[in-house]
């Protein structure tokens, strides 16, 4: 066989192309890194560890940039269809895949946990014969099992959205409505109330849960703190401005209603705690 330099040309070209691209890649690191860091911070799904759990389930396709959102959305719709068919295992695994592919949207987490914790116990009880047939203890066990799975979903969601009041509130709701663990609900409502953006409902729920388990003093102290922070339009107790003849705005009317309602609640707790009149709260 004779040496033919013509045959070396493609190899030489290929090597040159690879070398030039590698050099370009290194040279562009300063441009790439800040952008990559920003994307990385915002998209926790890109972590290798997270991927390993879901590899082989179509997650690779889901990682292709915008494909991820599309793949997750399609799977979500598929999950909704499975949910309508009351197919609990299939729904659950489909929802798991959705949140693995795209953990960014909160609604995937919230709705997944609600389906698992609220809807699936009902399907399972009906599948086992219905509420009349299945013994109460069995029903409770099913509810507890599903609630635990729902709570695990939300716990995982917290690693991606650590400051979400919505996640804490949803967890608290499950404890309140499903597991009836009011102490745990109280803790989580408090955590929800402490996150930015929460509207006030979680704070009141915290007090309500404390009341449910007989921790009236703690509920009372909590409400005093909350009341002090409430906006108080002119004329409401604790307001620095006296009442005027000018009508209140819609927002002021709502705020005044909330303040009045909370003050009445405080008075009821003072009564429950048998506080003497001189120790009663003075706004």
């Amino acid at each position, binding site marked *: *066989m*004779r*040496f*033919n330099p*013509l*045959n070396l040309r493609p190899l030489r070209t290929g090597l040159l192309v690879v070398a030039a691209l590698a050099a370009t890649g290194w040279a562009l690191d300063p441009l790439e890194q800040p952008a990559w860091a920003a994307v990385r911070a915002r998209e926790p799904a890109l972590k290798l560890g997270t991927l390993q759990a879901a590899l082989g389930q179509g997650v690779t396709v889901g990682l292709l940039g915008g494909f991820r959102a599309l793949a997750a959305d399609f799977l979500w719709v598929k999950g909704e269809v499975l949910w309508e068919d009351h197919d609990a295992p299939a729904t659950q695994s489909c929802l798991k895949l959705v949140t693995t592919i795209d953990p960014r949207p909160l609604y995937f987490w919230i709705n997944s946990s609600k389906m698992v914790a609220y809807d699936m116990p009902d399907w399972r009880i009906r599948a086992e014969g219905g509420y009349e047939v299945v013994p109460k203890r069995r029903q409770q066990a099913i509810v507890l099992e599903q609630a635990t799975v729902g709570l695990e979903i939300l716990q995982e969601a917290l690693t991606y959205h650590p400051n979400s009041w919505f996640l804490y509130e949803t967890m608290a709701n499950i404890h309140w409505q499903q597991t009836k663990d009011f102490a745990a609900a109280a803790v989580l409502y408090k955590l929800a109330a402490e996150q930015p953006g929460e509207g006030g409902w979680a704070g009141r729920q915290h007090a309500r849960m404390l009341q449910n388990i007989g921790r009236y003093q703690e509920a009372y102290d909590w409400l005093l703190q909350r009341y002090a922070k409430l906006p108080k339009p002119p004329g409401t107790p604790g307001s620095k401005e006296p009442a005027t003849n000018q009508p209140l705005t819609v927002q002021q009317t709502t705020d005044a209603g909330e303040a009045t309602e909370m003050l009445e609640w405080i008075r009821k707790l003072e009564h429950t705690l048998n506080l003497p009149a001189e120790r009663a709260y003075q706004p």
Partner: protein
Amino acid sequence: MPPAPAPPAAVPPASARPATAAIELRGLTKDFPVGLRGVKLRAVDNLTLDVPAGQVFGLLGPNGSGKSTTIKVILGLLEPTLGTCRVFGVPSGQVASRRNVGYLPESPYFYRYLSGEELVRFYARVCGVPRARLAARVGEVIEWVGLTGAAGRRVGTYSKGMLQRIGLAQALVHDPRLIILDEPTAGVDPVGSAEISAMILRLKAEGKTVLITSHLLAQIEDVCDRIAILDRGRLILAGTVAELVGRRDRQALLVETLPEAELAELRAWLAARGRTLEAVEQPRTRLDQLFLREIARSEGQREGRS
């Protein structure tokens, strides 16, 4: 074919230019690698050839003889393995070598979605025809190839003959000094083929150099000044048509048909001078000429009736 205005010359007439050969090939060799095992296919083998400026040059050879490869090297589309190729003195690897070259490829395919006029305009702009002269120049070459009536139609609707003509228009639009025609009559009917031959002769009359490959040897014989024959990449014969085709030691005399007795007398007269009458034949009109004459007569009658 409509009367053709001569394409305005962008270059001085041939007589004013230095006597540079339009194309010079020196020891041109082109190998193609086949596979990765060192096997090579030699398409052109040590070809040395000059195409003089101002002549029509025919490049002949069977399929696979290296004609198209040679043309591609001349156009800078292929790089020679060995040897050199210059076009008006410029190495063919340089873009500048194509400045004065117009090329009509074999079975030309053009952008089908463009009209004939758009196509010629596109190539004119690619070749740097000044905007001020663009419309006039495009109109001129389209008229020159006789396609004025169809210039607004999409190229995709053109017949084979029309495609060759629009191909010729795009090859001529920048007024090149050298025109390369690769099988310009392939698939074209005899009428179209004759028209193309006429165009080639007009280009020659305008001082252009034309390099043509064709399987129609009669056509080559009619229009070419010089020819070269290639076989398996090698030059096997080159020279003027007259030199190669004519027989200097023989003559043909054309007379009215002679009775047998007079023919015998002629033989005796020749024998007395030591000559022999080698052949007595009935002269024949060439079939293509007969075809063209009959078509022309039929069209003339049709026009007369209408």
